[in-house]
């Protein structure tokens, strides 16, 4: 989404709007299938779908009212009312949810005095909305204001976040850009994925520039893709002239100078002496001396990261931490496009296909259908047009691997697509990338341009006979479009209703032509397979699941991040060895695998090996690969309800079981979480869940009950407790009250923190909470230093 222009809206005359709209229509087109890009362009321009512009579309294009209403109300990206000047997006992804995103949202609405159904402040300065997932799960809870992402936002800190944001608006930082004439002393690598940027790597980047100029040290600052260790970002690697690498995790802007000074010498002697003196003085005058970043022993700094990376195997993420995402030369120097060259020079389509069949790779998007088999179907068709679509509509809350791969390794995905296209004889390629991933869109677009310049895509690729071009389609915000038939419907300019299969898209897909739809991660594994041979790839993994799998590890885990592991590794290994165990030393309760289509695997079964089939047997599924670690303080009923409310929101609405069935399941879960349910409601819920599972027509509906079914299977006692009015973890707000206990010393801190003035206090006397006023936001618990506020079951309190 581009910057918001609504400020100017009042000033735009009717003629201006029409002229702008006409320009957009001319640029984008007039046929019915361009409706989504057209609306996106309109919204980019006017910040919402201005009615004058829409009327103009009816006049000037083939898009009619029925189609436009149908499409514009289906996708959540489109806004029909003007928003405030700045948009606050509160992430409601899984990781953020378990870390209290709802409280953060409530805190924002309270702080900004947004009431009732309104989402905009009275002065039109801010609008607020919950979004499915910003893909920065390791920084949960996350909030995005316009383009700026804030991590670890606690309910008590929202006023600071707003103030910081407004401050930054005032003082628009100037970027310094002085060029130095010194010889390059070395290189500093800095991760610039979305999450790295969210945790401040852009600031580090600016600081590196500034300080290196100041010190007169000439270094290459290289923005690299995601390293995966999201919990340790911002992370910089200092590469010395001898090629050795020193790594600094969690680096702060204030430490940059010290680090640079430590490793590099300034170009001129005078500066060197000056720097040295100033630096000493700096160090002695501040308290940082004994906690200085460069003085910490190397192993202490990076031990965590080493163990984080030890069990991993990098195929999709090969080159993590040193490949610059958009440096084509570097990609080529690191065996990039080797496979494509090999294929074009010496492989027949059949040979490519048999390699992929031999590799045994299965689709990484969720279903786990053998990729080679799918390709075979497309290849066998003799239609004149065939398409390859890269499915980058990763919508699972709690998953961000596709985003990371697209952002960090765009060339690898492009290469994978080219190879597949060659094998099936496809004529056109398309990247379908969800709207919430602007950086991924930007990088792929740039990468495609670079490839086109080198004749890696386009006419007669690499001088051979084969021609293939690739374009980009931006999704408009609908989880269901991850389902391939719905994805195709949306490309065709329709609402994302899935179609019944068969016919499969491989037989009859986009424009009724054979279409190969593959997930981002699947495509990124293809170059490896061709380079090393299918059989080599097949050596990795288990009997029925080959290769590696990328997971987004988040939730209550010490070291979250993006990991790529060989299939067959156990969940325990992932949690303990890679993730460093549960955060805060709590006990592991379960691992939620596969997001809203997956399930919860309880701790005692976490010795299960990562494998498509073993996950399915447990009622979970690989999904697209979110791993959310849940601890003893997480309520399983709440987790099930969370996922179901997501699928309920995201159901396309076509079929009865999904549209109404999931809603009725959610009604029951709501009642359970509020202690209003009866014991037999649990059976009704289970019956409904089983029927929705078998009677839904597409993947979304068929898998939506999984979170409920698995929690019912492994944690049924928690459901029963809730029916009896007890939520042991205190997550279900309606079942608990906050009460002050005898540890209270009367410091009044809680009363000051309370956003609704529900705490009555006399200094030095035990305080008390007015239960009627309390909104159960938990702020008082956070500020109390004496553990004097506790959650108690409503039921217990009534008895007392």
């Amino acid at each position, binding site marked *: 989404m581009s910057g918001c222009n609504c400020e100017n809206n009042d000033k735009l005359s009717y003629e201006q709007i029409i002229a702008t709209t006409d320009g957009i229509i001319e640029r984008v087109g007039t046929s019915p299938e361009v409706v989504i890009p057209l609306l996106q362009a309109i919204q980019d321009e006017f910040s919402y779908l201005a009615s004058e512009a829409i009327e103009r579309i009816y006049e000037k294009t083939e898009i*009619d*009212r029925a189609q436009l209403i149908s499409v514009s109300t289906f996708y959540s990206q489109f806004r029909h009312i003007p928003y405030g000047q700045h948009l606050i997006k509160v992430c409601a992804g899984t990781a953020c949810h378990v870390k209290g995103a709802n409280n953060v949202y409530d805190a924002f609405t309270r702080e900004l005095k947004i009431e009732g159904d309104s989402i905009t402040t009275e002065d039109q300065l801010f609008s607020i909305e919950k979004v499915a997932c910003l893909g920065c799960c390791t920084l949960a809870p996350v909030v995005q204001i316009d383009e700026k992402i804030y991590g670890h936002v606690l309910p008590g800190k929202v006023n600071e976040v707003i103030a910081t944001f407004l401050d930054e608006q005032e003082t628009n930082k100037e970027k310094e850009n002085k060029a130095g004439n010194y010889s390059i002393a070395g290189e500093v690598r800095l991760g610039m994925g979305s999450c790295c940027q969210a945790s401040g790597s852009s600031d580090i980047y600016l600081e590196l520039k500034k300080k290196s100029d100041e010190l007169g040290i000439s270094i290459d600052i290289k923005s690299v893709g995601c390293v995966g260790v999201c919990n340790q970002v911002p992370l910089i690697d200092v590469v010395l002239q001898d090629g050795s690498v020193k790594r600094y995790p969690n680096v702060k802007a204030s430490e940059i100078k010290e680090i640079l000074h430590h490793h590099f010498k300034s170009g001129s002697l005078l500066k060197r002496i000056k720097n040295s003196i100033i630096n000493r003085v700096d160090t002695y005058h501040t308290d940082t001396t004994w906690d200085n970043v460069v003085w910490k022993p190397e192993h202490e700094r990076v031990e965590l990261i080493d163990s984080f990376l030890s069990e991993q195997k990098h195929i999709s993420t090969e080159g993590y931490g040193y490949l610059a995402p958009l440096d084509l030369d570097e990609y080529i120097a690191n065996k990039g496009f080797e496979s494509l060259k090999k294929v074009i020079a010496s492989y027949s389509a059949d040979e490519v296909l048999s390699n992929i069949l031999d590799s045994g790779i299965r689709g990484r998007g969720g279903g786990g259908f053998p990729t080679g088999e799918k390709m075979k179907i497309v290849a066998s068709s003799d239609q004149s047009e065939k398409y390859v679509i890269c499915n980058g509509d990763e919508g699972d809350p709690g998953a961000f691997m596709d985003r990371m791969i697209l952002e960090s390794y765009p060339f690898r995905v492009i290469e994978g697509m080219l190879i597949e296209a060659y094998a099936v004889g496809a004529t056109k390629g398309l990247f379908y990338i969800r709207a919430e991933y602007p950086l991924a869109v930007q990088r792929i677009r740039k990468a495609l341009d670079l490839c086109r310049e080198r004749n890696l895509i386009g006419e007669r690729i690499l001088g051979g006979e084969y021609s293939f071009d690739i374009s980009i389609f931006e999704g408009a915000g609908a989880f269901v479009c991850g389902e391939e038939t719905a994805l195709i419907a949306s490309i065709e300019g329709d609402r994302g209703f899935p179609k019944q299969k068969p016919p499969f898209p491989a037989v009859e897909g986009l424009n009724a032509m054979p279409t190969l739809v593959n997930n981002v991660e699947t495509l990124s594994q293809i170059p490896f397979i061709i380079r090393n041979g299918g059989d080599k790839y097949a050596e990795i993994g288990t009997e029925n699941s080959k290769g590696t799998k990328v997971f987004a590890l988040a939730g209550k885990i010490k070291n979250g991040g993006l990991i790529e592991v060989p299939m067959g590794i156990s969940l325990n290994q992932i949690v303990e060895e890679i993730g460093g165990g549960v955060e805060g030393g709590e006990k592991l309760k379960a691992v939620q695998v596969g997001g809203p289509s997956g399930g919860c695997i309880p701790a005692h079964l976490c010795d299960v090996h990562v494998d498509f089939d073993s996950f399915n047997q447990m009622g979970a599924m690989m999904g697209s690969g979110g791993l959310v670690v849940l601890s003893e303080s997480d309520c399983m009923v709440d987790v099930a309800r969370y996922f179901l409310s997501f699928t*309920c929101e*995201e159901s*396309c609405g076509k079929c009865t079981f999904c549209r*109404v069935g999931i809603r009725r399941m959610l*009604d029951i879960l709501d009642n359970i979480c509020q202690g209003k349910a009866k014991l037999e409601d649990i059976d009704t819920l289970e019956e*409904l869940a089983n*029927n929705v599972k078998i009677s839904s*027509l597409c993947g979304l509906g068929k898998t939506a009950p999984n979170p409920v079914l698995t929690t019912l299977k492994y944690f049924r006692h928690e459901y029963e407790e809730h029916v009896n009015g007890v939520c042991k973890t205190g997550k279900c707000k309606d079942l608990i009250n906050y009460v002050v206990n005898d540890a209270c010393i009367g410091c009044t801190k809680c009363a000051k923190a309370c956003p609704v003035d529900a705490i009555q206090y006399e200094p030095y006397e035990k305080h008390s909470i007015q239960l009627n006023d309390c909104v159960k936001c938990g702020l008082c618990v956070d500020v109390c230093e004496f553990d004097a506020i506790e959650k108690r079951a409503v039921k217990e309190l009534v008895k007392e």
Partner: protein
Amino acid sequence: MQIEINNIQVKIEDGETIIEACRRIGLDIPSLCWSKNAVHKSSCMVCAVRNLTNGQIIPSCTTLPTEGMHIDTESDEVKGVRKMSLDLLLSDHRADCEAPCSLVCPEGLDVEAMLNSYDKDNLEDALGLIKHAFQLPVLACDTCKAPCEKACRRRNVDTAVSIRQIIKEITEMFDASEVKEVENAVIEKKMFQSKLGRFTDGEKQRLKETVSSKSSCLHCACDGRSGCSLRQYAGDYQIKRPRYNMGSAMPVMTKENIKGQLWFEQAKCIRCGLCVYNSNNGFTFKDRGFGMEVILPEENKSNVPEGIESLCPTGALYLNVD
């Protein structure tokens, strides 16, 4: 092509779907979202059957048979799926089939129809209906405890329609012997009755402000009930009362004239989309998920084709001849 339906060998004719084959051999498969020769996308799952070859539950209306397929249409499980889909649709169907007042009248007066005539100032017909029900119209309700007024939906909004008083007014105004007896439409007491349920506060407010008929009657009876397949199947599958909480975002009791005699009542729509797929720039979907609605933008009303109401499986689209 040869397939097996409930262990009977059936030869499939060209292009035939499973439901067509089943109906051809006399199997009674219900369906709502499908209509022969109309554009459709399967959605309701009322026509569910089981493909025994792979164990899947499939919609028989769109699935094309494949050689050697084994289909089960009769098992309890298949019927259970159909029943549940009806249950689910009904839980989001906030409408009365028959008017509650007409259902409870001990004398069998079609109270709602009578009030309808009264509201249209057609007092003769109103009296004709009263005459049909009562031997002595003047004394009609004198001894009755008026269950009609207790059942009256208007009572949930503010106060019940004063049914007895209106009857008295009419009977005193005319001499009953001078008007023709008017035959009721049949009140199907034995059939399935969908129930409107309670109004929310917002709905009460809206109805109070918008319904201003002379009698204050809301006219709950469904105008499209005679052709309603949903009601028919609910009865066939022995559904007695709602299984799930009624919670619906649908705007209850909003009758909108499309053109001529064609009317649209959104709250009765099951979102099968037949009217959307079979009108060109006419009806359209709005929003998604549970809140998805079928709407007809004002500008598109003229694009609605003749006879569209015959596709509607419920009383959402109907012709009102008065």
